[in-house]
């Protein structure tokens, strides 16, 4: 090149090399790695949002809505996207009417700057429109729409319906194959849990383009979600509400079943809870109070409460003894108020004794001494065997999670004594049953041996119109002679109708109610206390009453348990009466 600058020529090559490096780098980024960066750019701008389908609704047997959905608009803030906390708090405070300190407190409480912090749940329409109009100025704000459960009739059978909540880590692991993601909702208990697969529906998806601040620019593609299936229950809304009101202020459970099919017409447990307080934003303090409440309001006593059946068990002893030919209906025993076995004395609940007692009188007046002897005749194994035939000591198979089996003793030589047999014959001791078990049991008696699986859901309907019908399921026919059932049923009617019957409180004008009282002892042997209200509450006996009506053509079977209610005839029978009266009144 130039003679004047012979040394400068290297710069020509330097320039050339530098630009070749730039060119080579552009080649590398755009041609060789172009695809990688293209994907990174797509990842930058594209977001996949899931679209939550409305959960299936729940209706009663007559198609009345018990559980529905509504969108809840919840306001969140992502601290990482905040420019200035203080100014943000001030402006949002004026928008929402939330105190500034409260907003700051929540933002500062975030565990990570990317965690969405809830500012307000369930925005009103006005708040929503105010926020939406200003959303562009607050890129840190997010409004999440979550379908929320609504209970238009108030809390209807909350124990049966169950609750829905955000999925936990543990549930995510457990249902790994079912396509759940963090933040999804899932049935936690009751039918919401049992029928989760039907109720949840199918998630939709939405591909949206967002800008660098995460604001949605446009929707590119959308796959509609599929709503969940609606459930139609066997429960009758009115009867259920009746049962709930009957238990108001008491602890206990009521189950009503159609004995002809096993359809559960009502299932109530008390104390209860308000499902509206559950869900994503449940106050932890409220949850703690509920979970730790000594009266266990979250327990569904109908399937999870286990109690000694008390005198209700005498039906089984009588059925067994008659079937085995160990007793004739007219065979008489003498009750002097107590019964001696070896050196032990077992009292009858009636101090002065029942005198001469046959089977009818034994059941109607629930004579303990009569059944001590029947129990001794057939023995504990036979009693347990007959109990098992009627489904005691085993799951009823009801379509609810968490059902308890109860307990039937297994008499073993050397560990079982005559005294145990005597106690067992009147339904005390180590026997344990749930109210639902006794309801299915009394249904089977009313049915003369047909044992149905109790069930809650009669139909599931897809939004497409597809229908699943859940039919009654006959678990088995108990092979006892017809006349045995007849004898017992006559006596059970006497329990209510007979002037001496223990269950007279369940008597109804024009309806033939049959039933059996029971008293589950909480402490020791029968208490001869004239006025149970004198006892401390925890020491009072549990009151049982099982019943069915009409005696000849039973269409409802009821099992009532009132914890610490005292006697079955006094505390439980009136509740059964109200229920039956109501049901047969509306449905002749």
């Amino acid at each position, binding site marked *: 090149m130039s003679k004047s600058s012979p040394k400068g020529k290297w710069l020509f090559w330097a320039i*050339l090399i530098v630009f070749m490096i730039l060119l080579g780098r*552009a080649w590398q980024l755009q041609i060789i790695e172009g695809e990688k960066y293209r994907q990174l750019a*797509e990842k930058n701008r594209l977001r996949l949002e899931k679209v939550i389908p409305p959960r299936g609704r729940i209706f009663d047997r007559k198609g009345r809505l018990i559980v529905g959905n509504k969108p809840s608009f919840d306001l969140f803030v992502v601290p990482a996207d905040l420019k200035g906390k203080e100014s943000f708090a001030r402006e949002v405070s004026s928008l929402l009417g939330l105190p500034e300190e409260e907003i700051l407190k929540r933002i500062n409480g975030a565990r990570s700057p990317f965690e969405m912090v809830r500012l307000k749940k369930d925005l009103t329409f006005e708040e929503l429109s105010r926020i939406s109009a200003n959303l562009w100025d607050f890129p840190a704000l997010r409004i999440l729409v979550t379908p929320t459960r609504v209970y238009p009739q108030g809390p209807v059978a909350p124990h049966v319906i169950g609750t829905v909540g955000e999925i936990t880590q543990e549930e995510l692991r457990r249902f790994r194959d079912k396509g759940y993601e963090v933040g999804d909702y899932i049935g936690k208990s009751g039918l919401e849990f049992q029928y989760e697969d039907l109720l949840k529906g199918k998630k939709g998806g939405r591909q949206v383009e967002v800008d660098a601040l995460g604001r949605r620019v446009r929707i590119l593609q959308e796959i509609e979600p599929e709503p969940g299936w609606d459930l139609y229950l066997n429960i009758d809304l009115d009867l259920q509400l009746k049962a709930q009101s009957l238990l108001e202020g008491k602890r206990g459970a009521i189950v009503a079943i159609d004995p002809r099919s096993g359809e559960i017409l009502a299932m109530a447990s008390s104390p209860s809870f308000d499902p509206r307080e559950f869900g994503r934003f449940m106050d932890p303090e409220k949850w703690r109070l509920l979970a730790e409440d000594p009266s266990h309001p979250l327990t569904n006593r109908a399937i999870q409460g286990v109690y000694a059946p008390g005198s209700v068990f005498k039906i089984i002893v009588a059925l067994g003894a008659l079937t085995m030919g160990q007793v004739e209906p007219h065979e008489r025993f003498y009750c002097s108020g107590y019964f001696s076995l070896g050196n032990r004395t077992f009292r009858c609940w009636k101090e002065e004794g029942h005198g001469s007692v046959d089977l009818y009188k034994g059941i109607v007046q629930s004579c303990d001494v009569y059944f001590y002897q029947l129990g001794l005749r057939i023995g504990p194994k036979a009693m347990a065997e007959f109990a098992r035939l009627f489904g005691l000591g085993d799951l009823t198979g009801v379509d609810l999670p968490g059902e308890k089996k109860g307990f039937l003793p297994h008499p073993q030589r050397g560990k079982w004594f005559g005294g145990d047999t005597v106690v067992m014959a009147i339904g005390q001791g180590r026997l344990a049953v749930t109210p639902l078990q006794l309801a299915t049991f009394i249904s089977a008696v009313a049915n003369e041996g047909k044992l149905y699986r109790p069930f809650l859901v009669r139909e599931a309907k897809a939004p497409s119109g597809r229908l699943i019908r859940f039919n009654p399921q006959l678990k088995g026919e108990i092979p006892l002679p017809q006349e045995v059932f007849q004898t017992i049923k006559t006596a059970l009617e006497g329990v209510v109708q007979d002037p001496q019957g223990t269950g007279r409180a369940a008597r109804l004008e024009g309806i033939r109610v049959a039933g059996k009282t029971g008293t589950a002892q909480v402490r020791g042997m029968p208490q001869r206390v004239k006025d149970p209200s004198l006892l401390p509450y925890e020491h009072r006996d549990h009151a049982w009453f099982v019943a069915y009506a009409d005696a000849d053509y039973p269409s409802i079977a009821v099992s009532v348990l009132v914890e610490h209610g005292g006697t079955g005839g006094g505390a439980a029978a009136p509740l059964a009466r109200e229920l039956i009266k109501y049901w047969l009144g509306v449905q002749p």
Partner: protein
Amino acid sequence: MKGWLKDFSGSVCVLILLTIGLINLWSASNTAGSSLFAKQILWVLIGSGLGLWCYLTDYKQFEDVAYYLYFGGVFLLSLLYPFGVEIEGAKRWLGFGGFYIQPSEFAKLGLILALARYFSKRPFQGDLSLSDLGLPIVMVLLPFFLVIFQPDLGTGLVLVGILGILTLWIGVRKRTLLFLGVLGGFGCVGGWFLLKDYQRQRILSFLDPWKDPLGSGYHLIQSKIAIGSGSIWGKGIQLGTQARLGFLPEYHTDFVFALLGEEWGFVGAAVVILLFLGFLLWAFETAQKAKDPFGRFLAMGITSLFLLHVTINIGMALGLLPVVGLPLPFFSYGGSCTVVSLMAVGLLSSIRKRRRFFGA
């Protein structure tokens, strides 16, 4: 190639670059602000006028006033301290009735003129000795310290770079070079501690941008994603998602090349790189062939100015260099840079023209 055609080839490169640059800015203006494109056209027109004036004027006249222009630039820089407008933590602009000028751009040209004059007046034209370099170093350090505390590291580097390239191009004694190298090394180590935190972060994040992808490494990552995702043909004008959706920061100024790479693809990026190369080789040749010392050094100074701006800016966008705020001539939005660049092109053409008229 015919002589006159060769003389104009550099200007043709600039013309094409300016056109592409304006289209690119028009694309950016869609989201970065619609007035941006109109303003830039105004700057280009003003710049072209001044460039033409430089071209038509005998550059020798600048030799006489070179030191005045240099001190004028330094004076403008010093004005930043009391009067500078602070934008995003840096005082780099002087406001004049709605317009902002960036004195550092003018100071660069002033420095080049002063250096050219100094070197052209040197009695012996052999390799440079330390004593030859004493005054030039002072001439660089004066504006250098004024800019790095604005803070504007990029311009500081360019100022030092211009002297460095000039020195190496003229030729320098080995001992002197070694001494200055060691001194420069210490200067860098000492300078590290003088750097602002964010500047240090930028250098560190250049080494590992994914260490803090949302913080200091963000620019680098998003720029590479923008360019890389352009692939061969690009996403099309106004269709660059990285820029349009705001993932790519400063895509109308310092990262304008990333916008180009995204929307025009490798084809566009390669054409621009090759046009800059063509222009720089033309500028380099102008310096090599200039007959008079002042013209030669002035041309070389301008060449190194463009060389540094283009390679640092594009190298940064491509993720080859740490993030330093330097505009890309003819592409970045900004009046001062555009006007100074076009004046520089005018000067180069002027030098070239006069070589033809008075030379061989």
